[in-house]
């Protein structure tokens, strides 16, 4: 156990160090969702969006939950990227030739992605706060939002790592990520409520786990505990199933690459 902690700690530390050496990229990663979506997109649609349709005091208030979950989505889906490079330049093989537990590399990556995602969710909620969106459930609500993010992030990161281990070239990896990310966003309630969507899109959006996550985060920001609790109950069930499916699917790729 002590050895396991030593390995996982050192491997996680490596991800942190890498990030700290790439300050520019770190800034971009952190700033992108709020700049692009919350500030640009939010203000762009502030006046066109009908507050009756979105059922929120303002479009930005409506959008905040969507941007939070979008960030979780994008961080999770990109979570395998560094392992992809490790696989390609032989670093992963070097790690696997050492007497470490076969799970530590993957666990270190989960830990790192989860930590970064949580931090980013806090930053987004902070910026939203400055734009006048105050989560009505307070600190407790923010904590629950982060927990929902972790629950959703596990499955996403698992998919991303499995993909990184399975693809033949890293071009494939990035085009698949791009192919997954935007449809997931458009076919969810991140930008528009279900009621405002064409029926076929609303049907697809209901099948999207992201929609369930947003449906729980949004009342935590806009409505209050009474409205949020049933949604939280549902999202826990949905995400447990989602994570189980993702981890089960990813396990084969993990085993093949990590032995």
């Amino acid at each position, binding site marked *: 156990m002590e050895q396991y902690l*030593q390995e996982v700690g*050192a491997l996680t530390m490596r991800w942190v160090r890498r990030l700290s050496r790439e300050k520019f990229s770190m800034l971009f990663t952190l700033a992108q969702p709020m700049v692009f979506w919350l500030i640009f997109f939010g203000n762009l649609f502030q006046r066109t969006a009908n507050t009756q349709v979105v059922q929120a005091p303002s479009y930005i208030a409506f959008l905040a939950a969507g941007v939070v979950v979008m960030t979780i989505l994008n961080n999770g889906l990109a979570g395998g990227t560094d392992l992809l490079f490790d696989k390609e330049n032989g670093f992963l*093989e070097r790690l696997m030739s050492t007497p470490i537990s076969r799970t530590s590399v993957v666990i270190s990556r989960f830990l790192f992605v989860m930590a970064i995602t949580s931090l980013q969710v806090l930053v987004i909620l902070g910026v939203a706060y400055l734009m006048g969106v105050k989560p009505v459930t307070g600190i407790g609500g923010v904590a629950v939002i982060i927990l929902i993010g972790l629950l959703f992030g596990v499955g996403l990161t698992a998919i991303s790592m499995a993909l990184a281990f399975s693809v033949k070239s890293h071009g494939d990896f990035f085009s698949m990520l791009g192919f997954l990310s935007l449809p997931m966003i458009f076919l969810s309630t991140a930008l528009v409520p279900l009621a405002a969507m064409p029926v076929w899109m609303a049907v697809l959006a209901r099948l999207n786990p992201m929609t369930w996550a947003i449906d729980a985060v949004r009342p935590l920001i806009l409505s209050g505990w009474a409205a949020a609790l049933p949604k939280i109950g549902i999202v826990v069930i949905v995400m447990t199933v989602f994570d189980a499916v993702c981890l089960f699917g990813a396990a084969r790729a993990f085993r093949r690459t990590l032995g």
Partner: protein
Amino acid sequence: MGSSVAIEVSHLSKIYEGEVTAVEDVTFQVSPGEVFGLLGPNGAGKTTTLRVLITVLRPSGGTARVLGLDVVEQATQVRQIIGYVPQERAIDRFLTGREHLQLLASLYHLPKDRASVRIAEVLKLVNLENKADEVARNYSGGMKRKLDIACGLIPDPKVLFMDEPTLGLDVQSRLKVWEHIRELKARGITIMVTTNYLDEADQLCDRIAIIDGGRVKAIGSPNELKSGLGGDVVTLTLAAGDLDKIEGLAQALKAQEGVRAVSVKQNVLDIRVASPEKTLPAILALVGARRCRLEFVDYHRPRLDDVFLTHTGHRIQED
């Protein structure tokens, strides 16, 4: 441990998905303290064999043992006693040299004080002390290679595996790496390298296995292999106009006393002779008598590329 064999590979085979046979029935043994080379062209199966030995690839058949430990059944124990220096520059360009070594030390579960001593040792060994705290992005190719080797040495391995240790290095860095390898050998480490450089196999390795098309074609010390060819090599290249005479000349040469073997490839005659000082004049006399014009004559002691050619039917860097 106390095993008298450091590495034992027995009837090893590996068939990848899609039924590509990378390695077939490979058998060899490496004694403790030896520098053993797997020599072959790209795609010959060298790296596959090595990856099985470092426990990151499961063999499809056969067995492999390192100091008596099975690489599949006792993989974790094997990992504890081996070091690995990969082919690619497996370097994280955002980390410093020291951070690489700290990471590796933690993965081998060294306690902190033991780790810092060991890190200082290996940095000194590869002569990287003054660059240890610089990020690897700023390293030259030779320095990255040194760091690679340092990483492989962190566990104080009994057996070190190096995949193409000098691939892509300039001459000076190459000689430095060889020097390091000899130093490690002097410390009693068993070292297995893969290479497609003939001179590396010749000058660095105590013994080599020539591997081609996934199979071992010959094993022995470079000198054994060379003398196994049975004599020095005389090569005659005939002028293009005299190609029709080549078969007749070959027959006549085979009958000549002192000639051991003759092979013909296009307009080139490869002649093995026991003692060139006696046989060479006779060979040239035969050529003169048959009025064959020569384009080129070469005589040399057998080289490793002659060994390679004899055992595989082609030159190592033909393509």
